[in-house]
């Protein structure tokens, strides 16, 4: 638990304070916030995604293929869907708990400007579900970790860099801005900022939420099928 929360705090400390210094010296405020406050809520979204990915790929493949602990569970009154939901419940709970601690920490140095920031832990839970569900579904049908490495290199790392976590979308030239809408993490980031600063149009917020909810829904539906197929062939 401690290490999960410390990870984004370290990012915040180094980038928020270090880079923040540079930013305030040259650019002043970013969208009306100091750099530190600007990136504080978004780091929650990003590290939640990383945690979800870390729990959902290798550990699931290990449990399914090598350690076969999921097979042990499948020989009991449980159905494969129960194992799947159990796994997701764990990831979501972890994300929520981390979100609570992190929100308290960043609130304590004044990064939160709105009562909406109280839903940040719930948002973390949603982001975790949106990413974990499809990833577990994928891992359950994987035979090797090859695809994971590809996803990591061409999916998560780019998302981490290009989701407007460390800079506003307005930093992008006009023609690139619409593309950011296709970066799943961006929606989590946008919602985190909206919650922390209490700003943003309702229309945009609903779209961001819809994107994440759709991801979660597709992931859960798919996962129920792949888990069933893997264990009840």
């Amino acid at each position: 638990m401690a290490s999960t929360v410390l990870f984004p705090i370290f990012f915040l400390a180094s980038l928020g304070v270090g880079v923040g210094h540079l930013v305030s010296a040259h650019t002043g405020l970013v969208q009306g916030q100091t750099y530190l406050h600007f990136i504080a809520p978004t780091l929650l979204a990003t590290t939640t995604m990383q945690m979800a990915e870390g729990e959902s790929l290798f550990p699931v493949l290990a449990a399914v293929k090598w350690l076969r602990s999921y097979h042990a569970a499948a020989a009991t009154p449980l159905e494969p869907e129960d194992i799947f939901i159990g796994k997701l419940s764990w990831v979501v709970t972890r994300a929520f708990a981390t979100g609570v601690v992190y929100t308290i920490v960043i609130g304590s140095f004044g990064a939160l400007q709105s009562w909406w920031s109280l839903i940040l832990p719930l948002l973390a839970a949603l982001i975790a579900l949106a990413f974990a569900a499809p990833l577990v579904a994928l891992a359950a049908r994987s035979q090797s970790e090859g695809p994971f490495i590809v996803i990591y290199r061409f999916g998560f790392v780019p998302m981490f860099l290009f989701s407007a976590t460390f800079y506003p979308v307005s930093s992008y030239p006009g023609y690139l801005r619409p593309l950011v809408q296709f970066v799943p993490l961006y929606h989590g980031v946008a919602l985190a900022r909206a919650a922390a600063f209490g700003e943003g149009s309702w229309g945009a917020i609903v779209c961001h939420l819809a994107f994440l909810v759709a991801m979660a829904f597709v992931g859960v539906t798919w996962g129920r099928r792949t888990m069933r197929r893997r264990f009840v062939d």
Partner: protein
Amino acid sequence: MTNDPILDARDLVKRFGAFEAVKGVSFRIERGESFGFLGPNGAGKTSTMRMLSAVSRPSSGSLTIFGLDPSAHGPQIRGRLGVVPQEDTLELELTVRQNLEMFGRYFDLSRQTLRERASELLEFAQLSERANDKVDDLSGGMKRRLTIARALINRPELLILDEPTTGLDPQARHLLWERLYRLKREGVTQIITTHYMDEAEQLCDRLVVMDHGAIVAEGPPRDLIARHSTREVVELRFDTDHQTELHHRLTPFAQRLEVLPDRILLYVDQGDDTLRELHGAGIVPATALVRRSSLEDVFLRLTGRTLVD
């Protein structure tokens, strides 16, 4: 009610795409007996076990376990089964005791019950001193005993063991067999798959011999041996590559002959007499061994292959 078999399988078939792993097998297993599936790797034993554990759905055929249909009552049936899989599927990061208690939670047992049962099972598996050690630190034999103990946490009526002693040293195997005898005396029905004929002979009241997805023989071990083999076998090794001429010379001395890559087997009733006759005829093997017929010979007779390729 008590005369109903605990498990009844009719024409079970399991297909994976175009490949038929199990080609229509039928058998009944009575309460309290130790029933074996003997066959080489790839015979379809594990696929059959997965169907019997109500985890895998048969492609066709009918199956009742405890009088219930597994496709309709899967969780209910699995709650009364204990399954010991071929690989130890333990949680390596947890302790021995935690593995038992955590697994028991899947059966909705109360924590109090679990604590008591875990202690009993640790005694049974002779792992009480290692109760708080991480499973990762245990030896292979201990992990196996823990896997079996774990399968008993819900006090199953039927225990299914898939190759329980593969990879264990003789001492560990004998300890395990002894534990399984104990369970049998307590009335737990057991289904055991194995490719070890000594295990099948020791543990099973009745068994079926499987090869390439089909049952080639069924019955108590002694009966199978009496039916498909002679009383004794003379195993001969010769210092020569000319097995075929030997084949002709040896034929009159035995009821049946089997030529293996490294040995020639003579199936006879009295091995010592046969050896004497061979000496009398001037046939001198490099080594000669007289032994009783085993299930290996039954398998060889029925399929033309050895149990271990």
